[in-house]
């Protein structure tokens, strides 16, 4: 903002400083103050600037809302996406599948063994 000072405004001050009259010095200071106030160039604010600032502050402070979603579905999704829960569920599913597979596999092996015995003692032509 230092660069924003008006050199033309300082010029009269220098001229008046060399004036020895004290009464005119006070008047000069007052004039100088007025000139300095005038010399501060501040850019014009956009329309409704303050209102916009407050609106943005309120938005930042407010909790995030998911719009357009079903609340319970979003809550369930958030639950599913928890890494620990997801890993635990995956592990449970794999173990359950493996146990069921072993059970079915042993039953099938039992049936295979029965079929093998039958094929030996009672060929298909007899059944």
């Amino acid at each position: 903002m230092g660069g924003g000072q008006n050199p033309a405004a300082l010029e009269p001050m220098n001229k008046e400083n060399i004036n020895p009259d004290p009464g005119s010095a006070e008047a000069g200071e007052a004039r100088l103050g007025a000139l300095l106030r005038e010399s501060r160039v501040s850019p014009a604010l956009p329309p409704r600037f303050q209102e916009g600032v407050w609106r943005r502050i309120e938005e930042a402070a407010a909790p995030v809302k998911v719009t357009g979603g079903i609340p319970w579905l979003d809550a369930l999704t958030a639950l599913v996406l928890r890494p620990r829960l997801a890993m635990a569920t995956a592990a449970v599913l794999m173990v359950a599948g493996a146990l069921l597979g072993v059970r079915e596999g042993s039953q099938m092996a039992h049936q295979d063994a029965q079929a093998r015995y039958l094929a030996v003692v009672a060929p298909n032509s007899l059944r």
Partner: protein
Amino acid sequence: MNRSLVILLGALVLGAALFGGSYAVSQRVCRNCMSKSVSDLDWLQKEFHLNDAEMARIQKLHEGYLPKCAEMCAKIAAKKSELETALGPNTHVGVNSTTNVNPVAQQKLVELAALRAQCQSQMLQHFIEVSQTMPPEQGRRYLAEMQRLTLGFHEQTESSMSGSAGHEHHH
């Protein structure tokens, strides 16, 4: 589509794939491992909880029965071949295109049936002998199971052909 719904569906599909994959792999591995290097009599020992002494007796009976069974099967196969020859290439199910079943084919059918009956009788005799080497309760269960498995098919067929009255017969 809703993002949450897509994620949940994806999770469901992934879960189903994990479950199904582990099920299929373990089932196959278990079946292969259990079926590998088992003897023909392995099922008997497991199903009827037989000890080694009982299994040794059954093994002896089994080895004595197999050559007889193979011999009967060979006779049946030869008789089937004779029947096919008697039927000739231009007839179906033994019916001549103009008249009835020819006498030679009829005779072969009777002989084949007699051979099958003889073979079945021999098989049932073997089952009875095997059942007698088992503890009484297991022997009864074995005999009933083998009769159901070997003769049950005919019973079902005959019952279905004779209507509801056939269901009353229990041999």
